[in-house]
């Protein structure tokens, strides 16, 4: 037998033996995966955003399968997914929390808000906040370092031309990671149906706010007192919208706001 044939045969035999060994092992060690679990994983959006509180879509599917988690926690999937999951698991249709999206409650960019000092450290909101609560004179506002932009799993947050942080509502899946990372909690989730929002987070007194920022809520209570049906309520020097009411008063209050900081998040 020529050496080359011998070598080829040996390798072929080795490969063949290993192949057979592997296929036997595959039979022996096969793990049966329940159809329901595969179906659940299939139905997931696959963004792995973690908004449900689990490590990812597969982890949440497994928790639902084991009965340790409810269907309907998935914000990107919404009602469709919740019903689908309930159907797979043979449960009644579940109540779904309304889809929520992130909104930045501050329009105080570098032109509108005074600075206390010049920050030159690590470009990260939490690092900046450690140093005297950040460089902004207002200690409640957006620090504009973009920690929320970095953490957003779907790239829905960006900085616009004026330097404000804005959320693209069509992309936002409502996972809430931005809110978690924000040191001032100035970016928060609001119901997607909320039509108005007071874009300020400051609880300073009116006179202080005036000194620090051009677009801060001064707690003048015009929206609350003059337009009682508007749905705005001043609490601790800050007007807050109840996310539901939509009357003539609301529209008028928006126009009457002396600082013009009532915005339409959906616009």
């Amino acid at each position, binding site marked *: 037998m020529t050496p080359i044939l011998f070598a080829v045969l040996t390798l072929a035999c*080795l490969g063949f033996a*290993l*192949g057979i*060994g*592997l296929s036997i*092992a*595959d039979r022996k060690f*096969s793990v049966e995966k329940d159809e329901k679990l595969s179906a659940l994983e299939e139905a997931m959006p696959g963004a792995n955003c973690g908004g449900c509180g689990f490590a990812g879509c597969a982890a949440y599917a497994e928790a639902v399968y084991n009965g340790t988690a409810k269907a309907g926690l998935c914000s990107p999937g919404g009602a469709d997914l919740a019903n689908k999951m309930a159907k797979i698991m043979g449960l009644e249709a579940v109540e779904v929390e309304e889809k929520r999206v992130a909104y930045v409650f501050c329009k105080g960019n570098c032109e509108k808000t005074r600075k206390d000092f010049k920050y030159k450290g*690590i470009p990260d909101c939490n690092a900046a906040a450690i140093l005297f609560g950040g460089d902004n004179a207002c200690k409640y506002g957006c620090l504009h370092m973009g920690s929320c932009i970095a953490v957003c799993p779907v790239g829905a947050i960006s900085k616009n031309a004026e330097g404000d942080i804005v959320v693209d509502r069509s992309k936002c899946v409502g996972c809430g990671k931005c809110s978690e990372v924000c040191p001032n909690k100035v970016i928060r989730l609001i119901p997607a149906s909320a039509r108005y929002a007071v874009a300020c987070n400051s609880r300073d007194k009116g006179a202080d706010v005036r000194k620090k920022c051009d677009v801060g809520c001064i707690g003048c209570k015009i929206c609350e007192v003059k337009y009682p049906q508007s749905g705005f309520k001043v609490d601790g020097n800050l007007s807050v919208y109840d996310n539901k009411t939509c009357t003539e008063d609301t529209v008028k209050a928006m126009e009457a706001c002396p600082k013009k900081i009532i915005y339409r998040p959906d616009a």
Partner: protein
Amino acid sequence: MSYIAILLTYIFINNFILVKFLGLCPFIGVSKNSESAIGMGLAVTFVTGTASAVTWCVYYGLLLPLGLEYLKTIAFILVIAALVQLVEMVLRKMSPALYKALGIYLPLITTNCAVLGIAIINIDQAYGLLESFVAGIAAGVGFTLAIILMSNIRESLDLKPPRKQFQGVPIAFISAGLMALSFMAFDNSLLSNLHLA
């Protein structure tokens, strides 16, 4: 060579990544955060250890008696690939927790050159079975050490990034080069100073 000498040789003196430049692909690819770096390091250690033992058996049990020593590279690739597949199956069945920690990294290192490298080095150095196994584990530990150091450097770099031109892979390569330089401090005098050589 004593086992301790073999351990020191492959962890420090002949560190697979920083001195021998083997297995650089996962070193750059999976070193972005320390959690996955540890997972990758453990998976590599596991595979280099078992692969060393198995390839030793294949070489001395099959190739040498048949006079086919020159086929060792291709035969080792075959054996290691099958071995990793088998290990993955066994892990999935026997220990789902370990499978979750290592599982996703195992297919990545099926034909990693660090794994093949230690198998061939074992034969070249004419190690015995146990010595080969120890050398395999040590090579994996050296890999783990390097990748964990690297991931910590890269995590720090994420916090305070360098100039834009250097961000990402360029600064990673520069850091790796500096780390390799510092590992040159380890040479055979380490062994002779410890009276191991």
